């Protein structure tokens, strides 16, 4: 089943003057099936984050369409998009994006609170997801009192608490050390395999990318290459590095 489809996306930054404009996206097409775990990679400035922001409805494209679960995001206004985001989408950000004045548990149930669900449902889901990611011990602590890895796992929990159609992750390991990165990537992998969540992850990190099932490489605003995981993660990791080399990025470009 098709969860997301983007057709001919263009995003142009800059003024009216042709010479001063920058094309961040240049006629990009993308389809994501239910249950996929896709990594988006590419050198700096290739348009990865722009793509993610447009696909998730945080930013609007200059032209082209984005459909998620049959709904056209382009036609929605900001408030409709807000409701759509909290009901159908999940987010994991590089800087965690947690609210400092709320406890870990309250942060996790935020999308449900915004969506005015019943307290029983919030409690049940929060407890389930917190034990899944082993953060139930810190439920009543505040974000500034827990480690980066725990914060990111909190963010991951928040991303899936509303059973979203698709989860967008923007450099989720960007601010983490390798141990925390591993634990967060394992969380995402489990989400994908056990809950059958659809995930789109933008990353620089080849190691993090190796947890995906499929990687698309973008360069100059379009999809340049696409590889699908076969065999072990180690083999996939090596292939990713090769592709990056071909793409012109450096092998240690993380």
């Amino acid at each position, binding site marked *: 089943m098709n969860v997301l489809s983007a057709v001919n996306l263009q995003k142009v930054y800059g003024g009216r003057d042709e010479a001063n404009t920058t094309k961040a996206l240049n006629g990009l097409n993308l389809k994501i099936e239910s249950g996929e775990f896709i990594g988006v990679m590419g050198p700096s400035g290739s348009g990865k984050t722009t793509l993610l922001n447009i696909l998730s409805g945080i930013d609007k494209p200059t032209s082209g369409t984005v459909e998620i679960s049959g709904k056209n995001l382009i036609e929605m206004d900001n408030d409709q998009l807000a409701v759509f985001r909290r009901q159908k989408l999940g987010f994991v950000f590089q800087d965690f*994006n947690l609210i400092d004045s*709320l406890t870990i548990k309250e942060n996790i149930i935020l999308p449900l609170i*915004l969506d005015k669900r019943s307290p029983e449902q919030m409690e049940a889901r929060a407890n389930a997801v917190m034990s899944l990611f082993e953060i139930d011990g810190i439920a009543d602590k505040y974000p500034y009192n827990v480690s980066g890895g725990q914060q990111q796992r909190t963010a991951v929990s928040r991303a899936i608490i509303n059973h979203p159609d698709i989860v967008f992750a923007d450099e989720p390991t960007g601010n983490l050390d390798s141990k925390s990165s591993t634990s967060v990537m394992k969380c995402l992998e489990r989400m994908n395999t056990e809950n059958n969540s659809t995930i789109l992850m933008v990353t620089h990190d080849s190691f993090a990318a190796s947890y995906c099932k499929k990687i698309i490489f973008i360069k100059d605003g379009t999809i340049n290459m696409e590889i699908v995981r076969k065999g072990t993660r180690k083999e996939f990791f090596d292939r990713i590095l090769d592709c990056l080399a071909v793409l012109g990025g450096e092998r240690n470009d993380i």
Partner: protein
Amino acid sequence: MTFRDIAVKNLKSHIRKYLAYFLCSSFSVMVIFMFSTLIFNKQLTDFCKMINVSFITYFSLVAVIIFAIFFINYAHTTFIRSRYKEFALYMTLGMTKKDINRIILVENSLILIFSMLIGFISGVLFSRLFQMILMKLINLKKVDFAFDFRSFLITFLTFTLIYVTVIILSRLSTRKLEISELLKHSRKIKSEKSSIIIGITGIAIIIVSSITLLFIANNRDLNNMLTFMSYFIIAFTGVYLTISNFGPLAVKIIKRRKGLYYKNLLSINEIDSKFSQNKKILLVLCVLSSIIIFSVASPFALYQQSHNIALNTSPSHIEYASVAGVNEINRNDLDTILKNSDTMFTGEKSIEFLKLDYKGGGDKYDLLGIKPVVSASTYNSFLDKQLVVPEGKAVNIITAWEPGYHGLPSGSRIEFVSGNKSFTYEIQTSSKGTFIADGNVFPSSSGIILNDKDYERIKAASASDVIGSFKVFMFEDWKKTGNVIENLKKVFTGSNSKLSNPVAANMFKLSSTLDTYGNLKKVYSVMLFIFSFMGLLFIITSGSVLYFKQYTELAETKAKFGKLYKIGIQKKEIKTIISRELLMTFFSPLVFGAIVGYSAMYLMTFMVGGSFILAPFMEFASLAIIAYFLFQVVFYLITRKKYVREITG
């Protein structure tokens, strides 16, 4: 790059933060300066002394200084806190704490110097305007505009002292902080020290102190300036405890109902964190609101009531005491004067009294050591009362306006001396009330009522120059009695000057409703001016405090809602959350201020008059509260609109 370059660069890059802090400081200097010029303005202080309201100027200066302490402390703390991250970065790069302290010191000294400069300049300008209006109001022709150097000095000293305290305080708080703490500090929002029990205690203190006040208002022993001040201090301690623990208390109560709690989690959280962050500033706002309400409402009420208060203090339109040759006028002259009145003369009475020397307590009103004494039946028939005074007892009726017993409390003894005999009575009751004539007519703080038999006994033993009479004249319209008063005064001044002791004779004044009314109006208009000026100043101040608070919080709030926006919050939901928080910040000080202001007004009515002005006083207090409330609503709506636009834009 030298250390000084860094400090200068700092200043440039944070110009907006500095500007806000700088304006707060300048504003405080200006306000302190303006009020201190009042204290050292000789004409004004003389006037205030003359009408016994010297405390007004001191009271307002103290209020202003207290305000400045809190305001500057708040501005300084916010300013320093907003830069913790920057300090942490410097320290990571190898700057020592000593260097950081030096930066703080240099910056603050610069701000101190420049805000003094700006504050003094604007203070001088506004003071001129302020004094001009004030002098015009109290009809002082020759106005002396010289600025006393003492007002500069007092402002300078006060302000420097506040600054030094504030810097020491902030040094103490940064001394404890480590780099990691400094980095975390900007994120740490909850204060861990709040307690629910203390919160409840705070509410209890407010309620108990306000109720106690209602009970003691009518008690002459307790109703005085000290009670008034202690009430303010106690009530605001309660307010502070309530505010600082309000968040956790509300959260605790609401958390019992999970559904309600989760539904309003974001609003509750916003209010909770804002309250614990801003408890000091909320206290300042509470104090300001109560002063605004009290200071605007009470002089308005007094001014508007001066007609009634005049009639209450001087119910007889014209009255004077005539005894031992003092205030003597022959019948023909009197009739001529009365006939030439602008208003119809409706009746006169002559009430006999004894001017007796006494031994016993007294104060500045009792310089001559004499009291007017009347018999119970005279008193009862004149005032239509049923007072019973047993033999050997005396009733003391206080005519001086200040609270207290003026040396003759109930149960004390008073000894009259007449001729070579002495008569001693026990004071049965001593209370403020209406005697035959008001306090100006007879130079004494009170009048004495005796049993008819006792009265006759003394009268029989007394020489004829002890027996006198109060003359009372009533007219159709007391406001038109001006020429009668003038003519009588002329006659009395002439005749009294021929007596052996004209100074003492002149202490037996002619009193009239019209004069009382005129004096009251004069006093109240000055009060009205000073107090409403203070009120206006405090309204502006409370507005700028609120504005300053919102302004400093903007970046943080914007970041928070930016995060929520990505997760999926709608604009109208942001608006709801912001509205609720603003509603609490704007109106909770008003509620607390109204409670305290209302109670203070209640106490004040008993201090200046009595129950007869209670209703109009409370009416004015309510009006002031409503007006202030409406003003705040407008201010709230404007701020909300701007603030929401800033956050969501």
